[in-house]
């Protein structure tokens, strides 16, 4: 099958041409060229425009036949539907293996569009060209420093790859990637799936060495079984997180059998994803939180969680959420309790959640984190309360009645927050166990030294214990499957 090697070319081109480049910053053909130039792609870059203007310092070519043969293998096609089909043979002649078709006006637009889409696929097949789209917003490949899309943003480098049937949902996840500093490997708006289905992208991400975590947003499936098979193949090696759009409209439907009447689209879709070993997410935000966890943390080997908190109420909420999940709130081992006793005054909780109850001094948290995480019964940890000292620091810094002492204290708080974040990540690395930090302060004040230190390290800072627990649960389920084989 030509598509898999051609997809590799699409995401790792030696040269790319924007076909139909525009001089107008509001047009697709301009934005695409701009983003390719701005992202620092260091392969060959060409652009065509019949009037041969200079755009962003690039001398455009009058037509495709002016592009040097074999200088490009990928085309970003920003032409109308008929011109797109007409240009394919010339592109093949130049050595193009894969093209992204931005234009709408195909299947989504009615009967004539359906015909055009058939023709597009036929022509592409006959030339051995792989077509992504049509009717999509483009693609991103950070290992190639390539942002070939007609929208924003360009995300940081990382190991999450996304195929999305909606361009906007893709942009939303790329926005989250930027805000959280959790990077992307490949991302593509798959459009009408004319020639390639979402399954083809999932398979490519499965074999792609730059991809550790796969995310797919799916509305309709041209071939459900193929999607299921692709999930099954890839889920053996990598987590595949699936978001489904358009599940709520169908309730029970007319069916000749009782069984058929119970088999709602949503139920069968969810069955297929889970049976294949995939991971279901409710929405793009949740999907990205899950992806973040998988991308940055070691897999837990079991279900036993310990909660360490400097914030009593959040500890209670977290314990409740764990009891509702399939995770297990570890009963605090006696030997661990005795060890913790050495570092805290007697008022600490002496149970899980380990609530420090304000008894901590300068070195307590950096000492306790590895002590607790290293205990052989602990599979994973949730840490609550990061940023509380940073909050005080902010108040002191903004204070109209600041003194030398408050300023000094603010600096101490800030350096402590950073120490805590570093101690957490170091312990996680040392013991190869995941630690989930959950704090609303990551959102309310992303400059707070605690959350900021995590974000700067490219580590996850979850906005609430409940989302951290769902992500941990997803990782634990995946890890369980891995161990079962």
């Amino acid at each position: 099958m030509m598509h898999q090697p051609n997809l590799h070319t699409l995401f790792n081109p030696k040269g790319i041409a924007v076909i139909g480049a525009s001089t107008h910053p509001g047009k697709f053909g301009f934005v695409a060229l701009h983003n390719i130039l701005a992202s620092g792609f260091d392969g060959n870059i060409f652009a065509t425009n019949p009037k041969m203007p200079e755009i962003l310092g690039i001398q455009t070519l009058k037509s495709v036949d002016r592009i040097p043969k074999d200088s490009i293998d990928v085309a970003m096609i920003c032409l109308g539907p008929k011109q797109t089909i007409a240009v394919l043979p010339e592109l093949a002649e130049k050595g193009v293996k894969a093209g992204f078709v931005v234009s709408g006006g195909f299947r989504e637009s009615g009967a004539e569009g359906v015909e055009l889409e058939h023709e597009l696929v036929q022509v592409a097949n006959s030339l051995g060209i792989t077509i992504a789209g049509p009717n999509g917003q483009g693609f991103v490949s950070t290992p190639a420093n390539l942002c070939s899309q007609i929208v924003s943003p360009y995300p940081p480098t990382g190991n999450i790859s996304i195929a999305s049937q909606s361009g906007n949902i893709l942009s939303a996840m790329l926005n989250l990637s930027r805000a959280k500093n959790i990077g992307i490997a490949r991302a593509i708006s798959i459009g009408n799936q004319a020639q390639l289905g979402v399954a083809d992208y999932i398979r490519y991400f499965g074999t792609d060495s730059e991809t550790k975590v796969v995310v797919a947003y799916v509305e309709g499936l041209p071939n459900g079984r193929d999607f299921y098979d692709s999930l099954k193949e890839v889920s053996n090696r990598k987590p595949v997180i699936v978001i489904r759009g358009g599940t709520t409209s169908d309730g029970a439907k007319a069916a000749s059998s009782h069984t058929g009447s119970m088999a709602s689209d949503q139920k069968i879709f969810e069955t297929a994803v889970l049976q294949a070993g995939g991971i279901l997410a409710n929405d793009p935000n949740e999907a990205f939180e899950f992806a973040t966890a998988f991308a940055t943390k070691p897999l837990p080997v079991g279900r036993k969680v310990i909660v360490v908190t400097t914030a009593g109420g959040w500890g209670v909420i977290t314990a409740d959420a764990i009891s509702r999940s399939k995770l297990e709130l570890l009963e605090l081992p006696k030997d661990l309790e005795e060890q913790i006793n050495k570092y805290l005054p007697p008022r600490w909780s002496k149970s899980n959640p380990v609530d420090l109850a304000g008894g901590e001094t300068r070195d307590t948290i950096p000492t306790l984190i590895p002590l607790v995480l290293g205990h052989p019964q602990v599979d994973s940890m949730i840490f609550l309360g990061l940023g509380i000292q940073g909050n005080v620091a902010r108040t002191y810094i903004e204070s109209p009645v600041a003194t030398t002492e408050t300023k000094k204290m603010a600096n101490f708080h800030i350096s402590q927050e950073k120490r805590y974040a570093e101690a957490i990540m170091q312990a996680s690395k040392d013991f190869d166990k995941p630690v989930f930090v959950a704090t609303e302060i990551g959102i309310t004040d992303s400059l707070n030294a605690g959350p900021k230190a995590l974000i700067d390290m490219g580590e996850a800072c979850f906005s609430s214990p409940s989302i951290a627990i769902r992500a941990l649960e997803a990782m634990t389920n995946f890890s369980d499957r891995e161990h079962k084989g």
Partner: protein
Amino acid sequence: MNSLTEFESKRLLSKFGLISCNESTAKNYEEAAAAALEIGYPIVLKISGEGTEHKSELGGVKLGINNQDELSVAFDEILVSNSEVSEFLICEHIEGKREFIAGYHIDKDFGPTIMFGLGGIFAEAISDASFRLLPCSREELLRMVYELKSSALLNEFRSEPDVDLEALADTLEAIAKCGLADPLIEAIDVNPIVISGDLPVAVDALVIKS
């Protein structure tokens, strides 16, 4: 659409290993009485043959018939609302507190699927069912069974023993194999499966062909 009768459906599924109740067909009262003696009372009398898929709604099912006199009365009652019926089914009466349903269905996106769910009088209100795409392993079928919210019913329940899970897996495998064996089979409903002692017994079944 071209459904098999209940009798034909159960015979077909039995070839694949479905455990179903003892039963035989009869053309008239005399044959029914003879069949009832053979099976042993109590029995269930049902209308059979073409156009009887919704026999309960047609008043075509009489449960818990304990002797020949009751059979005679039940037979007359059934004929009042089903005078054109020319075939009857005499089935062993299966007693059990727990009922489940199972079935096969070809999904438009994902192809063949199997279902297992809670049956009985609360089934529609509670709607507790899980699915798997087919083919799948026996272990996967049992995972499907344990996904039910009401899976605790598979354990010892009101002095009835644990359900024989191997027998239940056999039943589900029979449904899966039967559906997959014939591309013309569009759907299968096995409803109810009554747990008799520890054994799941198919009391009614319907195979729908396109």
